[in-house]
């Protein structure tokens, strides 16, 4: 690649939001694409290989949708940073600019700015047939002449025109295009011209007046300038007083006057009726009363689907992995290697893959809502409500998805462009009671709450469940409120967004979205999850030299003394082994810390192991209480319920202990996968660790108050 006249073989795909850019990207690159982040920010960077008719491969990067080179969000900032820095690594040799033919005037603004930066650009005029059915048509040839930019008509949905586009890319890449735009899109005032002249004298790499103007506008934010350059430029700016916003507005207005004139000239007059579907549907979907109700119905449906449709495939995955583990143990025999592979690596891998059905379902449904254009309506409807606690209209999607699983929910926050609102959403989503808390709730609620019904209607247990969910949601809202007060942001918040016309979701885009989410989850979070599982496996299977052997012998002796059968003996051995393992030592070491909450060392062990995932709590309790079958929830409950506290002679799992434990699981961040995914989404360990500390701290305090309070009241 890239040998030709110093070119790097790099193409940027740029356009306004909703210009059909991503669809075109999928058509251009097919499956040859990669998803990552732009350096230093968590803005998604999709890149892929594009093959020219002559066989050359170029790299094409799909940039976030942007309205102009005056960025108002981190997404837009990325585009600006790349395009304004000719010395940067991502600076493109060529831009494919996608514009929606229906809104040509608006979309030509950014094109005219890019043109003035001197980057070779091709205009891909998108959705020609949608425009034509609305009575809007253009003479592409005269548009190309007027703009001085090669123009290709494409259809992002069908991929029509991509062949011609690639031919044009090849020609432009090889330097075949010499037309200049007709007429200047804007003129700077004499004062600004003086400033520009001085800046160009200072920065040798600036070859265009407009580049210099952009530097003047964004001087304080350009990370790629040297400190001494910034210092000298500041002095220049002091000589030439410059009101950025006024100059910006003047520039945009001039450009639009120029563009309006071009669009009037190349527009082929025709009459036609506008697609009225959108306004009819929106009469109900954005209705002041029906709108929110319909949204809640959609969410309930998504929640139900993610919750119930995933059960079966999740069971399959779990079964496959337990079979595989059994197979390994059978093939290798007992030993550290087979245990490491089966109980450490495979269990960890299973722990990663078991989330895939939920991730696939959630993102499939969310992609449908996004692609159809509905999501923008939800944001419009809930913007105010969410903004009150520092969230964004889009946060509501994450919060509701969180009732199924925090992992896809955290990943879904990528659609929130304001980074502070996104961060807060990520931080509070794990407070929402997810499906992994259910087994723990079921065990403890059964232990704590009698089976009766309130007035014969709703059971006490069901009401307790509901209370736990409400508690989690309340914690999320309160947490958002607090984080919103603590975090500072330079980004102005805004709603101002397009409500695109409704359209039938395109399967290609839906499939690509789901695929890239799943792939990035497995790749990024998977590594951490497997690592932590191996550590936990080690802690639960090993101990100080000799201790495990001794524990096994003690257990065996006790089993023989009591005449236990083989299964019960195995269970007793397992119980003794986990008690004496490093995890058991950790649990016992934790006891002084958790005793004020009413927890003993057994719960301590379960807290350690269930850090892998909350539902592991039940399995660990089963092992500790030496119950052979993990699935036998009733017998665990009976054993736990029957246990007496030697100090008081009363039941160990009395109301204060059970409630304290329940509350702990409502609030605590007992989930390594969530931590892994938050680390991936926030780009570092800082936020997941803060989140872990805050959630665990809160859980501790709440449990402490509940246990001590209830005990003091004599329960």
């Amino acid at each position, binding site marked *: 690649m890239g040998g030709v006249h110093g070119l790097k073989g790099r193409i940027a795909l740029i356009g306004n939001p909703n210009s059909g850019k991503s669809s075109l990207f999928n058509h251009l690159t097919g499956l040859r694409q990669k998803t990552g982040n732009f350096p230093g920010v968590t803005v998604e960077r999709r890149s892929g290989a594009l093959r020219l008719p002559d066989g050359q491969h170029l790299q094409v990067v799909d940039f976030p949708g942007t309205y102009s080179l005056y960025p108002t969000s981190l997404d837009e900032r990325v585009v600006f940073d790349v395009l304004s820095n000719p010395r940067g690594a991502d600076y493109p040799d060529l831009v494919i600019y996608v514009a929606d033919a229906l809104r040509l005037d608006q979309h030509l603004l950014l094109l005219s700015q890019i043109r003035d930066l001197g980057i070779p650009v091709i205009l891909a005029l998108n959705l020609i047939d949608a425009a034509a059915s609305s009575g809007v048509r253009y003479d592409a040839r005269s548009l190309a002449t007027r703009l001085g930019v090669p123009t290709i008509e494409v259809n992002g949905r069908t991929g029509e025109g991509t062949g011609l586009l690639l031919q044009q890319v090849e020609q432009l890449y090889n330097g075949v295009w010499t037309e200049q735009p007709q007429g200047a899109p804007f003129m700077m005032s004499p004062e600004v011209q003086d400033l520009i002249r001085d800046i160009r004298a200072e920065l040798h790499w600036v070859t265009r007046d407009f580049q210099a103007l952009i530097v003047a506008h964004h001087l304080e934010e350009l990370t790629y300038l040297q400190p001494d350059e910034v210092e000298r430029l500041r002095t220049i700016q002091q000589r030439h007083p410059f009101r950025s916003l006024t100059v910006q*507005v003047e520039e945009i207005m001039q450009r639009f006057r120029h563009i309006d004139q071009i669009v009037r000239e190349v527009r082929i007059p025709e009459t036609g009726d506008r697609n009225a579907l959108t306004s009819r549907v929106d009469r109900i979907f954005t209705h002041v009363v029906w709108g929110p109700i319909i949204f809640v119905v959609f969410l309930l449906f998504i929640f139900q689907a993610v919750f119930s449709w995933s059960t079966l495939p999740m069971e399959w995955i779990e079964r496959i992995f337990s079979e595989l583990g059994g197979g390994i143990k059978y093939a290798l025999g007992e030993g550290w290697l087979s245990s490491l592979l089966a109980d450490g690596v495979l269990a960890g891998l299973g722990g990663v893959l078991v989330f895939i059905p939920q991730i696939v379902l959630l993102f499939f449904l969310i992609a449908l809502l996004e692609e159809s254009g509905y999501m923008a309506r939800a944001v419009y409807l809930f913007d105010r409500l969410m903004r009150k606690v520092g969230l964004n209209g889009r946060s509501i999607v994450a919060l509701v998805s969180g009732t199924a699983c925090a992992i896809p929910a955290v990943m879904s926050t990528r659609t929130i462009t304001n980074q502070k609102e996104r961060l807060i959403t990520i931080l509070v989503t794990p407070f929402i009671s997810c499906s992994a808390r259910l087994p723990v709730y079921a065990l403890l609620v059964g232990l704590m709450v009698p089976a009766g019904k309130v007035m014969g209607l709703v059971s006490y247990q069901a009401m307790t469940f509901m209370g736990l969910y409400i508690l989690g949601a309340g914690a999320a809202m309160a947490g958002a409120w607090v984080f919103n007060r603590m975090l500072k942001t330079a980004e102005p918040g805004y709603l101002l967004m397009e*409500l695109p016309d409704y359209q039938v979701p395109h399967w290609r885009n839906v499939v690509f979205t789901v695929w890239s989410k799943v792939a990035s989850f497995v790749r990024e979070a998977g590594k951490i999850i497997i690592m932590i599982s191996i550590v936990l496996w080690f802690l639960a299977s090993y101990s100080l030299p000799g201790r495990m052997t001794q524990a096994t012998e003690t257990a065996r002796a006790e089993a023989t003394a009591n005449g236990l059968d083989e299964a019960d003996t195995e269970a007793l051995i397992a119980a003794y082994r986990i008690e004496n393992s490093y995890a058991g030592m950790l649990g016992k070491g934790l006891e002084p810390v958790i005793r004020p909450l009413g927890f003993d060392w057994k719960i301590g062990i379960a807290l350690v192991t269930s850090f892998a995932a909350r539902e592991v709590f039940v399995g660990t309790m089963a092992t500790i209480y030496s119950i052979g079958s993990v699935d036998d929830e009733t017998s665990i409950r009976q054993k736990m319920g029957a246990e007496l506290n030697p100090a008081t002679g009363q039941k160990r799992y009395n109301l204060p202990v059970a409630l304290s434990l329940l509350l702990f699981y409502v609030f605590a961040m007992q989930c390594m996968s969530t931590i892994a995914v938050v680390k991936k989404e926030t780009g570092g360990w800082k936020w997941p660790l803060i989140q872990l500390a805050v959630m665990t701290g809160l859980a501790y305090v709440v449990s402490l108050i509940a246990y001590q309070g209830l005990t003091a009241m004599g329960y």
Partner: protein
Amino acid sequence: MTTPLTLADVRPGCRVRITRVEEHPSTGRLLAMGLRPGQIVTLVRRTAFGASFYIHAEFQQFGIRRDEAEALWVEYMD
């Protein structure tokens, strides 16, 4: 001339022409999205308590907040 009013003061269902865009953190964005002087817009509906506005402007719809609507000075069409 009628009394000056902003898009936030307009009744739902009315068509107005934008006369001026006031300076506001979102000014650049408003202009770049095509909400600029001369543009004719219809205020279609509002969310509860007039927090957000659904507006229509030539081939597209927008959702905007009250303070953004207040930056758009408008006049009624005849």
